[in-house]
């Protein structure tokens, strides 16, 4: 892509001082999109169609068209309907939503309000991970300001549209980032993913229709309303358009969150945006979208762009665009063991394959890491991945199995080198 990334002007977290203050935000055109949709010529259907046309693909990892998701909500029946905003952001390597909470909370609030209007929701819940204590406080402050200005509450801007907005802090469980267990957690229950069907659009929070969106996804909504669907879908990759927050971490000179269009070449992101590899080392591997997405080797990274299609072709996924960069000194066995440790620790324990499998994976990897592994253990690991993938209520088992399957597949020599030579076959 011959795109000059330096000329791009951020829109989600623009470079405006004190934008988190509501006055600064409104002065810079904030809440205009809300005013626009609440004016007479925008009915909810029109908002949904506009967002659908913009093709905002969910930034939480699944990459599903947000407008399409909204259209799955059943017709209003007079009862309560909810919008639940997922700010749990617990996937290792992902740290983008906190930037929104910190630098541009009102953009998200405005987006959530527009979404609530489009789906005729009566209340909005934003679920923020418990470790983000300061950000929960910031969000509470921002909401209070928006309430005071009359952007939230009864009869918003005289339009007759009512909506309440609540902040809930998580309690430190990764699983509560899974949408249905987030709903359980919001209801005050233990964070166990729900069996689907019924889907949240039919039976979500307290058994009522609910849509769950990522914070970044909702933050794109006011921009679409303001600039039009064509503007949005014209940014970045054709099939996966829009601005996106790349969270770059690992062995680069300037790790951080960078807002750029989708479809950026990974090499550009590493070498230019993030200031190149640390200490001039060579790239060894890259996890493109949070720890559960399959790792790419340096060879695979070449010519690959950060959008759903290009990454699928390369053998991975976009996920949350939380990129973890690893240089040539990285010990892949150690890295994989650490990731597996995380999933073992975070499995909610509801379904058998995940509860038992994540622990088994970690223990075998620990054995290999400590030099006691055998080559047959690698076969067992791959076999266990097959026993876990697609066999559970939520996708945590897949998230735990994929790094193991692909890291071993793509860095097999390194794993074999750590193993003792097997003398007998597996039982």
């Amino acid at each position, binding site marked *: 892509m011959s795109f000059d990334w330096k000329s791009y002007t951020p829109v989600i977290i623009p470079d405006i001082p004190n934008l988190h203050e509501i006055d600064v935000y409104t002065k810079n055109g904030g809440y205009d999109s809300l005013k626009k949709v609440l004016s007479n010529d925008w009915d909810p259907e029109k908002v949904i169609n506009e967002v659908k046309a913009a093709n905002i693909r969910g930034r939480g990892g699944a990459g599903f068209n947000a407008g399409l998701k909204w259209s799955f909500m059943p017709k209003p029946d007079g009862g309560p309907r909810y919008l639940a905003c997922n700010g749990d952001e617990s996937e290792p390597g992902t740290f983008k939503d906190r930037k929104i909470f910190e630098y541009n909370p009102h953009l998200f609030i405005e987006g959530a309000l527009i979404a609530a209007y489009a789906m005729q929701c009566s209340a909005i819940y934003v679920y923020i991970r418990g470790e983000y204590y300061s950000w929960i406080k910031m969000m509470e402050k921002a909401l209070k300001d928006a309430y005071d200005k009359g952007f939230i509450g009864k009869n918003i801007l005289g339009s007759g549209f009512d909506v309440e907005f609540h902040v809930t802090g998580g309690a430190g469980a990764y699983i509560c980032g899974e949408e249905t267990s987030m709903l359980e957690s919001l209801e005050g229950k233990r964070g166990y993913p729900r069996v689907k069907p019924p889907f949240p659009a039919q039976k979500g929070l307290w058994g009522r229709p609910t849509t769950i969106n990522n914070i970044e996804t909702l933050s794109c909504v006011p921009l679409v309303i303001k600039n039009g669907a064509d503007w949005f879908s014209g940014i970045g990759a054709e099939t996966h358009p829009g601005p996106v927050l790349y969270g770059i971490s690992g062995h680069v000179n300037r790790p951080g969150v960078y807002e750029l269009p989708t479809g950026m070449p990974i090499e550009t992101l590493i070498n230019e945006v993030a200031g190149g590899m640390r200490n001039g080392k060579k790239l060894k591997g890259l996890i493109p979208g949070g720890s559960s997405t399959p790792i790419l080797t340096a060879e695979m990274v070449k010519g690959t762009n950060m959008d759903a299609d290009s990454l699928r072709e390369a053998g991975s996924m976009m996920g949350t665009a939380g990129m973890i960069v690893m240089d040539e000194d990285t010990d892949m066995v150690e890295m994989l063991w650490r990731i597996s440790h995380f999933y073992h620790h975070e499995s909610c324990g509801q379904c058998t394959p995940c509860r*038992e499998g994540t622990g*088994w994976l970690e223990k075998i990897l620990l054995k290999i890491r400590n030099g006691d592994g055998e080559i047959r253990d690698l076969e067992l690991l791959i076999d266990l991945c097959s026993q876990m993938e697609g066999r559970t209520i939520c996708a945590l088992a897949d998230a735990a199995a994929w790094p193991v399957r692909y890291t071993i597949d793509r860095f097999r020599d390194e794993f074999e080198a750590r193993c003792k030579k097997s003398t007998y076959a597996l039982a």
Partner: protein
Amino acid sequence: MPEIFIDGKRYEFEGKPKLLQFILDNGKEVPFFCYHPEMSAPANCRQCYVKVGTPVQNRETGEYELDENGERVIRWFPKMQTSCSMEMTDGMVVHTQETSEEVARAQKDTMELILINHPLDCPICDQAGECPLQIQTYKYGPEGSRFEVKKVHKPKRVELGPRVTLDAERCINCTRCVRFTEEISGTHQLTISSRGDKNYPITAPGMEFDDPYSLNTVDICPVGALTSTDFRFKARVWEMNQTPSIDITGGKGTNVDLWTRDNLVLRLTPRYNENVNTHWMPDEARMAYRKFNENRISRPSIKADGNNQIKTSWNNAIETFAEKLEAVKPADVLVLGSAHASVEENYSLMKLFSTWGVSDFHFSPDVKEGFGDDFLLTDDQAPNTNGVKALGFSETSAEDLKAAIKSAKVVVLLNDELVDRGVLDSEDLKKPFVISLATNETETSKSTDLVIPITCIAEHAASYVNVEGRIQRSLPAKETKYTHRKLDLEMSEGRLDRYGTNFDNWVNEDNKVDCTPIWELMNNLGKRLGLSVQFGTSREIMDEIASSNSSFEGVSYEKMDDENGIQLTGMNKEEVSA
């Protein structure tokens, strides 16, 4: 009617059944752990996997699309589905482990994962022998284990409450116990603590699992994680035999099984009856087994000088009984039936004494106001209040009873702990000659002049009418000195009973009580008094009652067995409560 094809066979169904239940109802099998028909299906054990497909329909015409062979085109679900949560639809095609390698493999995979952290302690586990995990591992599990690393360690011997002990390592996290307290008993006392493979069910900190139905969680636990504090380590399942019976601690008539070994009842478990208790029973009822073993009266005893009772012979007991009766007029004899005794026992007592000339029969109801709940506990503490009423015994208050005893010369007391439960004072029984026909040594039996031991519910077949007017019967589970398993075809035989001999070291003759059913006692007494009363077995007595008493019309043991109890006509719920 909608149809479904399971393993190539066509079935019809109505409504919206869940696939697993439908498969089980049709006599087929799919392994499962977390599913329970009375509770929600969380689909968390991932054991009941099946392969499911639906026929492809033409969107416009709604007709099934056919392939070149004229067979319906099936769109298979991309992943295998848990049958417990799968709603059936018309034309659905299902493959279980019987016809799909893929399904069999998936089930084996799940089983392997369930087993990796499960302790291999079946030899000392109470659940062994009746363990769904053990049984299904043999049937569907892997041949060996590939698990060569350390198992997870969790708390052992956690006393969750007064009656339930947890071994957390054995838990497979099916959440049946948690759901029981949420959905059935409604106490919400249990939850899952911790995450992943470290989790196990527990109460909130500082709280006790004192749910009045807590022991049901032991029954539904598919492994040996929840055990009965009372029963654990007492017996292996395969040493015991199981006899269907009825709970006698309350008016509900909860169906139970008596588990016996060497003529001792070791535990009670609920027996399924959709009209009464479904799968459950209250904890209180489980402790009743002790009364069948402990403090039993064996051989008659008679009050000698002062207050001492001494053992006496059966001949002397019956002779004394008869002499005391012959010395007075029937009007001077007070006969008390009992709501704690069966229909047949009360009937034979009543029949003999009415033949002899007694016309009034009384009983004292045993009701604790406010004790009942809207589940299985009732205010009525006796199992047969409706039965004695229907036989014609009149309900008598404590005051009236005291007055009647005062004016009587001889009192015959059928198994009822009148002194113990505070209806009478032992002083009240001082004046007349009191003959008690009793099962257990109690304050009441100690206060009487002649005690004749009778069989308890664990030793005879007899019927009881519950608060809703349903008549149900027991089967004999324990031998007395005068019965033998091999001769009484209603008695079950455990492995030890069948293959043991009297000389084996696990056989204890003292466990057999020297007592007879009351109808046999009445036969002997009737013969001695020269009355033409003759009772056969309790089965024949019930036939006699059915033909002479309109309340019991149509009742027979055969019908009770076939229909799991009979709702007596003219004794439905509304009338009883009114």
